[in-house]
């Protein structure tokens, strides 16, 4: 390959990454613009973004895309100047263009040819012509012809002037060239300086840090086993430990991104579902600045999309029904993200119809998921909707009924080492609470011993450790024991056999999930270590409550216990 080709490929890759970012921001601005068409600044930023995309496309030789971006730009200018009347249809076309650009650039990234741009260009053409003829604006009857760059830039600058005139009228009084001014304002807007990093580099750092963690654990192990007390050595080890703690926080944070991307995608989902169901929704997003591991954030979009669709389609009532129930006519869907006690929580709430526990219980019995709902709390019954093969509607609608059940949704969360729970009130609404770990690969853990083997529990999963005494277990059935602590009865399981005859002073680790406690019996407590999760043979993960393995300071392998799987094995027996 020639140098020139190499260079082209390189700048193409750069451009693609950049363009994806720009299209994400333009989508966001489109949605803001839709809510408030009078807000000129959002359209101004869209135009700026499209102009850059157009320039970039041309530079790297994606000519057809450049053409489309150009036409879209012209079209937007007309909308902005109100020469095309703002309408829902216009908005739809704009979003369609944005989506098309996105998928085209995505396919270019995968080295596939992008789809033909003709039909969209045609659509823009028709749209512009139709509207313009109607309103008869003499100057612009040739408006769909390509404007040259200078003209477009001029127009852009003009428009920016008007924006900035609103924002900062004084600044405009100076004779600074318009484009220059534009740059200046962009510069001052950037407060938090940032650089773009490839994920690969970050992961390399995470891996090296992981190796370092193992080395540190080894060092401490060797020092401890030498059995000599050396104050200097001790101080150095403590210093290393302190800086490793800080490093760990930083390294984890490097992989964290905020929820903006997810929330923006959900905005689109809400908009589309609103349209297809003819319901009006206020979508409230809380905690957009909250950060979470990138892998987790990326995997959240699919299940949340499904859940939001469900909430609007099945949860929120039609306007007529809402009126008769004296509820606000616009339905409300709220999503809230926050951190608490080393875990991340997402809550999705709607003020719709709520769930009917009687209907769910009946269905669950019919489908053979439970034998009888006797003795079950309402909440336990609601959570049956996550069971395999459960779907309360006989007929699925085309909005949310895409063959994805709530069981699949829950699996997507458990795959992320998280969990999902539902609560509801008939007539008032439904609330999902999702619990997620902050990071998948680096965390602090407690090492326990069970039958001479070591295991690890993540500290965030661990509530407390209590001694287990034989007479405490009130009743047992098969391998399930129950433990009574402060008048609370907790189911207890064990990794091997719970048979207490050979055990001296066993302990029980109390784990909590969604407000309920579970116990894990083990022989001895070894200590604390910083854990770098490593992959293990998937067969072990299938046949046991393990999420991975870790190499301890003494060089041995310990398996990491996955809370949700332990709890599942409790539930199976009880």
């Amino acid at each position, binding site marked *: 390959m020639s140098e020139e080709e190499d260079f082209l490929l390189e700048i193409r890759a750069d451009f693609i990454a950049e363009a994806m970012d720009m299209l994400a921001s333009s989508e966001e601005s489109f949605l803001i613009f839709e809510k408030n068409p009078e807000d000129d600044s959002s359209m101004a930023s869209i135009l700026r973004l499209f102009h850059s995309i157009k320039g970039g496309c041309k530079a790297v030789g994606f000519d057809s895309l450049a053409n489309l971006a150009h036409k879209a730009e012209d079209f937007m200018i007309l909308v902005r100047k109100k020469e095309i009347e703002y309408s829902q249809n216009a908005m739809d076309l704009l979003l369609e263009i944005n989506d098309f650009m996105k998928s085209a650039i995505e396919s270019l990234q995968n080295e596939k040819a992008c789809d033909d741009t003709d039909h969209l260009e045609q659509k823009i053409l028709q749209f512009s012509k139709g509207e313009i003829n109607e309103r008869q604006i003499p100057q612009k009857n040739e408006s769909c012809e390509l404007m040259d760059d200078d003209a477009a830039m001029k127009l852009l600058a003009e428009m920016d002037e008007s924006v900035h005139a609103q924002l900062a009228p004084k600044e405009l009084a100076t004779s600074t060239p318009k484009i220059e001014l534009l740059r200046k304002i962009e510069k001052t807007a950037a407060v938090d300086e940032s650089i773009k990093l490839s994920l690969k580099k970050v992961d390399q750092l995470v891996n090296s840090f992981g190796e370092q963690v193992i080395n540190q654990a080894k060092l401490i192990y060797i020092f401890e086993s030498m059995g000599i007390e050396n104050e200097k050595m001790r101080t150095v080890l403590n210093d290393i430990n302190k800086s490793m703690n800080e490093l760990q926080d930083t390294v984890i944070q490097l992989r964290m991104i905020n929820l903006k991307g997810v929330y923006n995608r959900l905005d689109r989902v809400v908009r589309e579902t609103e349209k297809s169901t003819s319901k009006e929704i206020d979508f409230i997003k809380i905690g957009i600045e909250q950060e979470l591991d990138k892998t987790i954030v990326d995997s959240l979009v699919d299940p949340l999309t499904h859940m939001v669709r469900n909430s609007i389609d099945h949860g929120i009532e039609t306007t007529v029904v809402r009126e008769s129930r004296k509820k606000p006519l616009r339905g409300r869907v709220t999503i809230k993200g926050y951190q608490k006690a080393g875990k991340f929580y997402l809550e999705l709430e709607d003020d719709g119809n709520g769930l009917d526990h009687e209907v769910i219980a009946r269905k669950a019995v019919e489908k053979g998921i439970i034998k009888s709902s006797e003795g079950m709390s309402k909440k336990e019954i609601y959570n049956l909707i996550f069971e395999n093969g459960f779907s309360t509607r006989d007929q699925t609608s085309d909005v949310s009924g895409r063959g994805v059940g709530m069981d699949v949704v829950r699996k997507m969360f458990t795959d992320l080492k998280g969990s999902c729970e539902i609560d509801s009130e008939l007539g008032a609404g439904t609330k999902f609470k999702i619990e997620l770990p902050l990071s998948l690969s680096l965390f602090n853990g407690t090492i326990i011993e069970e039958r001479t083997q070591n295991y690890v529990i993540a500290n965030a999963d661990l509530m407390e450790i209590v001694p287990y005494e034989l007479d405490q277990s009130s009743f047992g059935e098969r391998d399930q024991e129950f433990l009574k602590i402060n008048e609370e009865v907790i189911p207890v399981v064990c990794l091997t056999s719970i048979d207490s005859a050979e055990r001296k002073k066993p302990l029980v680790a109390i784990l909590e999930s969604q407000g309920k406690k579970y116990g894990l019996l083990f022989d001895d407590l070894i200590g604390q270590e910083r854990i770098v999760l490593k992959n293990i043979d998937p*067969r072990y993960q299938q046949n*046991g409550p393990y999420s991975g393995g870790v190499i301890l300071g003494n060089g041995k*392998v310990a398996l990491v216990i996955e809370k949700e799987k332990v709890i599942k094995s409790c539930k199976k027996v009880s």
Partner: protein
Amino acid sequence: MKKYFVFIMGEKRFAVPMLEVEEVVLPIEISVIPEQEKCLKGVVNLRGEIVTVVDIKIKLGLGETSIIDRKTCFVIFNLEGHKVAVMVDEVEDVVQMEETEIKDVRDLRKTKFVEGIYRTKNDQLILIANTRKLLEIDLLEKIRNAA
């Protein structure tokens, strides 16, 4: 001609394609994992990587590798990125075999894990093992793709 790696299990000689073997190491302390299939012995720390140890003797119906002595080795297989450690009683040799001289026994009903037999010049029989089946590579692949 193709190179085969020959090892001894119980009283029998087995051979696998040389390319499937990554390295041979001395026995490492195994971390046992409870409640698993009998042939899955546990995991070891192979220079920072967690690798599963399999006792293929159980699969081959040759009993169980109970004694780890001076001759015991861990043979590290790498098939399509799946790394597995296999306990063998003794590592013997690397033998060049003409593929046409390997007798195909795949049609015999009883031989699930042996696909061929090779007779050496001094009349020794070497069983050619089907490592894909023996190490459940298809299953591992399936789980990997499902994830």
